[in-house]
């Protein structure tokens, strides 16, 4: 009947402790402590690691590695991560951002997981004790993950190549109606040469918008140019109905917001 916390100096030892039934890794705790407070009896204990690498941010030659314990607030104020600051700053309110970690965000169910939407568009890799996985693969089977995530890594896009939009009703702090991240490369004539588009709140976890990505290639970022992408934006989505918005509403407004982000 106690919810003990075990703290380990190394990820390896914490990982071993995590194998115990009901043990749950503790990041910033904004989701798991909340669940425990609300009587989630599937959690029987917390495990965490204080290994310094988990809290490190390393940037060299545009290659970024963010430790799993790094908080949204730390990302938002990191001088080398300026393009991502906005995506980190839209997570929760100030206190939540001081606690919410990158590692935890990867597991956050819809309508949460805004920063993961950004990571998905960045095509990040997720490192665990067991090795590295492309984020999309990781997200697809995150329920069965029982390893500790140590870091996420990605290449910083060229200046202006990354765009992010979170739509919420309550401002400045509100839960997502949806969020969208894009990483676009454009040829000198302005046509899109490569595109990655990720959506939040369009399924139970962040998803890539493959059809829209494909429809953007070779097109210019004009109203006409993006029209085919907007037309297929809803391919493969299954947005949830929750207290924030109905599935119908999310479905209706997705192309509108995608259009605004692409034309911004």
């Amino acid at each position: 009947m106690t919810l003990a916390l075990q703290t380990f100096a190394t990820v390896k030892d914490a990982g071993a402790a995590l194998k115990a039934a009901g043990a749950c890794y503790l990041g910033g705790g904004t989701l798991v402590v909340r669940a425990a407070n609300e009587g989630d009896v599937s959690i029987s204990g917390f495990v965490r690691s204080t290994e310094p690498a988990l809290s490190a941010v390393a940037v060299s030659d545009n290659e970024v590695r963010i430790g799993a314990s790094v908080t949204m607030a730390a990302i938002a104020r990191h001088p080398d991560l300026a393009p991502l600051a906005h995506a980190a700053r839209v997570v929760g309110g100030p206190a939540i951002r001081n606690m919410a970690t990158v590692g935890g965000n990867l597991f956050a169910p819809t309508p949460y997981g805004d920063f993961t939407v950004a990571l998905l568009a960045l095509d990040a890799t997720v490192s665990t004790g067991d090795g590295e996985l492309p984020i999309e693969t990781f997200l697809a089977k995150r329920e069965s993950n029982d390893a500790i995530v140590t870091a996420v890594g990605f290449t910083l896009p060229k200046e202006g190549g990354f765009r992010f939009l979170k739509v919420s009703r309550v401002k400045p702090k509100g839960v997502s109606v949806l969020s969208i991240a894009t990483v676009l490369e454009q040829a000198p004539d302005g046509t899109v040469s490569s595109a990655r588009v990720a959506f939040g709140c369009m399924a139970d976890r962040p998803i890539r918008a493959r059809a829209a990505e494909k429809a953007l290639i070779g097109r210019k970022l004009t109203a006409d140019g993006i029209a085919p992408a907007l037309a297929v934006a809803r391919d493969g989505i299954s947005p949830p109905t929750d207290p924030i918005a109905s599935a119908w509403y999310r479905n209706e407004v997705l192309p509108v917001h995608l259009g605004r982000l692409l034309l911004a």
Partner: protein
Amino acid sequence: MAKVPVQFTLNGAEKAEFIDSGTTLLHALRDKIGDTSPKGGCHQGTCGACSVIIDGELRLSCLTLAEACNGATITTTSGLSEGGVLHPLQRAFLDAFATQCGFCTPGMIMAAKVLLDHTPNPSREDVVEALSGNICRCTGYEPIIQAVLTAARSNSQNAA
């Protein structure tokens, strides 16, 4: 039940307690240490009434495990006034009618204090952003925003 020691500085005083492992900081402060100024309005991170300052950062004590605060420096609203003299924020909240039921007030003051510690001359937008994790069901927020702006002005006057 496994008891574990925790030790931290609370409002300038050393505190050491044995608590049940897994206890939230909110429960440790309120039920063990007897500082009931942080309030539990939701225990899920949404209301901000439990806000405290840990090592200079705003945190939600309902989602923070007390054991994770070993060695930390913690400030709560009950520790702000010195020798019976109200902190400028407390004074401003009082003067601006920024409290009604008062349940949100200690958390609001914590959020405002962190803001003014880092941004002595905040804009209205800065204040709104800083208070965005704190819910008030009574005042309609406007008097609270005004109180924080007033406190910032009185601080900068004192500094001048």
